């Protein structure tokens, strides 16, 4: 059988259950702003090693692009030079061959 204290406790628990725990889950006012401000401040100082690696990666990428372009240009140039020479050699070769056969 329920006594008075039991009923009182039940009333208290029912009222407490209504509140839920939304209030406790709220983050304090301005917390997110402070986190972002701190993150920005720390991002500007940065870690020395990370910044160095970043720069090395950038320079390396630039070098790869320049070297690639230069290599492509050289290949193209050598093909342009090589093609007429090959033709001349072929013409001369066929002329010699025909002369020998006569």
């Amino acid at each position, binding site marked *: 059988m329920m006594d008075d*204290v039991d009923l*009182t406790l039940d*009333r*208290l628990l029912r*009222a407490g259950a209504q*509140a839920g*725990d939304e209030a406790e889950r709220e983050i304090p006012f301005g917390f997110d702003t402070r986190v972002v401000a701190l993150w920005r401040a720390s991002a500007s100082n940065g870690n020395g090693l990370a910044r160095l690696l970043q720069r090395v990666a950038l320079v390396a990428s630039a070098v790869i692009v320049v070297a690639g372009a230069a290599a492509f240009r050289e290949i193209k140039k050598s093909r342009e030079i090589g093609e007429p020479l090959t033709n001349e050699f072929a013409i001369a070769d066929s002329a010699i061959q025909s002369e020998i056969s006569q």
Partner: protein
Amino acid sequence: MIFVKMFQNLSQFSGAVPLEHWVSRIAINTCLNQIAAEKSRPEFRQADLSEEELAVMENLAATSDELAPDQSFASRQLVEHLLTALKPAERLVIDLLYLQGRSVAEIKQLTSWSAALVKVRAFRARQKMKKQLTAISRKEK
């Protein structure tokens, strides 16, 4: 509580370690401090109550009606205070059964306890809470 501590000590965060590690360290320390505090002071005292919680106590003693919705937050705080003196398992069963409104079957599934154990723990927890509530009511008078 952990959020508040983070907020207060945000200036101490150097950025040398990831934020997650720093937050988890604060959370662990807060929990350890709380456990230590509960061990050193397991009894709940009337001086721990806020004005709103005292008003809830007065209302509970004065009428047999349900508490007003504007007192629900203070009621929750009072319940939380009463829960601090309970064992973790008892605290859990009260939270699930009364504050979250789960059934014994659900608690059985969640905790892997038998239905009898859930009921026994809830009964023991209620007895302790009643004892505390009576003690506070007496002091108030």
